[in-house]
């Protein structure tokens, strides 16, 4: 025991860094800066903290699909694994820009026009652009604070029909109200494989929803859903239209199933943890507890004897 305590108090810098990274990576949506602030004072070691932050923030930002405002305030750039050109450079295909970001501060410091090699071919861009337009319309309608983007993740240099390529739609909506002790995020990633040979689109969706309420407590929701749908390979506009319809339909259904899960809570799911009222439907007869010295008889009577 004594040895263990000694060992514990002598954590190496590497161990401290791993612990710091764990806390940062496990921050709830939108709360990494708060975690960072508390973590700094717990660690009390600027150098270890900075090393951990350098490694953890980029991973957190990409997995949480955070959006950052462009320096000229013309719009947002999403931080995702799909548009990462370099560890600090993210492509914004809508405006053909490349944003340079500071991961730890979670700000976009500058933007430059993208060069041709960074952008998809005109053939791919037609599909990407059409889908982006449909998604902008849908996200604008469905998410009060949603940001979306469409990237080409495979075959961006395909020049014309005859080859496969893959687009990905990313939707990210975050709501933070620290004053109300409540934060949440909705993240959808839709991969669309354009299979030229069989003229089929294979659509795979992954939705992740989280919410955190922590006024005098700590309660979190984690919900996840995945799906796979196939549809016909069509011209850019028609493809975009049918993909957007599939996404719209599936996300609306998923929201409805989340609401159903909530409404099932009181009478079914939560009841399996603890009932609102006892099986007898009356409050427990504490005034009769003296009789419980005859416990066996009562247990028999209630039919709960072992």
């Amino acid at each position, binding site marked *: 025991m004594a040895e263990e305590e000694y060992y514990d108090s002598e954590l190496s810098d590497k161990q401290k860094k791993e612990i710091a990274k764990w806390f940062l990576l496990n921050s709830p949506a939108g709360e990494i800066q708060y975690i960072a602030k508390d973590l700094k004072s*717990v660690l009390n070691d600027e150098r270890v903290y900075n090393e951990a932050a350098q490694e953890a923030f980029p991973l957190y930002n990409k997995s949480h699909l955070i959006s950052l405002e462009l320096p000229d305030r013309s719009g947002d750039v999403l931080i995702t694994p799909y548009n990462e050109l370099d560890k600090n450079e993210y492509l914004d295909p809508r405006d053909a820009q490349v944003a340079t970001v500071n991961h730890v501060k979670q700000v976009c410091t500058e933007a430059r026009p993208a060069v041709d090699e960074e952008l998809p071919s005109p053939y791919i861009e037609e599909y990407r652009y059409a889908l982006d337009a449909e998604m902008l319309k849908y996200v604008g309608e469905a998410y*009060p604070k949603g940001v979306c983007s469409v990237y080409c993740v495979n075959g961006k240099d395909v020049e014309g029909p005859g080859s496969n390529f893959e687009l990905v739609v990313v939707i990210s909506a975050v709501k933070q109200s620290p004053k109300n002790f409540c934060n949440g995020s909705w993240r959808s990633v839709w991969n669309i494989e354009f299979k030229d040979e069989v003229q089929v689109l294979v659509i795979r969706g992954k939705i992740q929803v989280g919410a955190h309420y922590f006024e005098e407590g700590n309660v979190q929701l984690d919900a996840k859903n995945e799906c796979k749908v196939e549809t016909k390979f069509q011209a850019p506009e028609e493809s975009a239209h049918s993909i957007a319809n599939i996404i719209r339909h599936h996300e609306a259904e998923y929201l*409805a199933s989340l609401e159903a899960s909530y409404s099932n809570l009181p009478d079914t799911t939560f009841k399996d943890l603890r009932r609102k009222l006892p099986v007898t439907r009356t409050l427990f007869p504490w005034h009769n507890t003296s009789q419980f010295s005859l416990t066996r008889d*009562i*247990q028999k009577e209630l039919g709960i004897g072992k």
Partner: protein
Amino acid sequence: MEAAMGLIRRIHPKRSDTALSALLSLLPHHSSDLLSQVDQPLQVLCDVDCGKGFILCEYNRDADSYRSPWSNKYHPPLEEALFPSSELRKLEIEANEAFTIYREQYYEGGISSVYLWEDDEREGFVACFLIKKDGSKTGHGRRGYLQEGAWDAIHVIEVGPEEEKAVHYCLTSTVMLSLTTNDESSGTFSLSGSIRRQMNMDLAIADGHLCNMGRIIEEMEGRLRNTLDQVYFGKTKEMVCTLRPPPEIVMRLPNS
């Protein structure tokens, strides 16, 4: 310490044990504060004498052994261990019997344990009522809806000395829970969390300590369950509907 509690308040409740051990290794000087302020999922041991499970906590621990409320023996055995006075032990036996029935009626399963010990400072005593329930379909979930479901309740009551036929009771209760449903069409849906509340009451001694403590706990548990259901789960649902409003709200917007 304040920053450490700030981290605990934000880190996912399902990962609070990892967070606690990380904090313990970073802040070894605060270990007793951390252990007393951060609630951990309850652990269970089996009483070798009667084969029944009992719950472990700080209040039935002496060195590395834990006292079973059923046989009153320490596991593993301990020489020169501490025991409650025979009068308190009598009340402890009654409390365990009554609480077992209470638990069956509200939880339809699970494990409960009650521990009492003298409080020398305040001339009263302290009681700790514990319940652990696995509500999953492989555990004690009667309805079989839950892939995973855990409810851990800790009620600590400080019982003051008798003053003019009344006694002051101070109850601190913590509930930690998690529930997960999983099916093909809707995916996984998981809620987890913990809350802690305090309640003070002066009650007549005429009804006896067990009756008084039981009533306070029953009221508190009902409140906590209600708060979790209505307020805490409700807030997360509200958040989801803010992120992506259900269709009827979207349609109502232009008029509002």
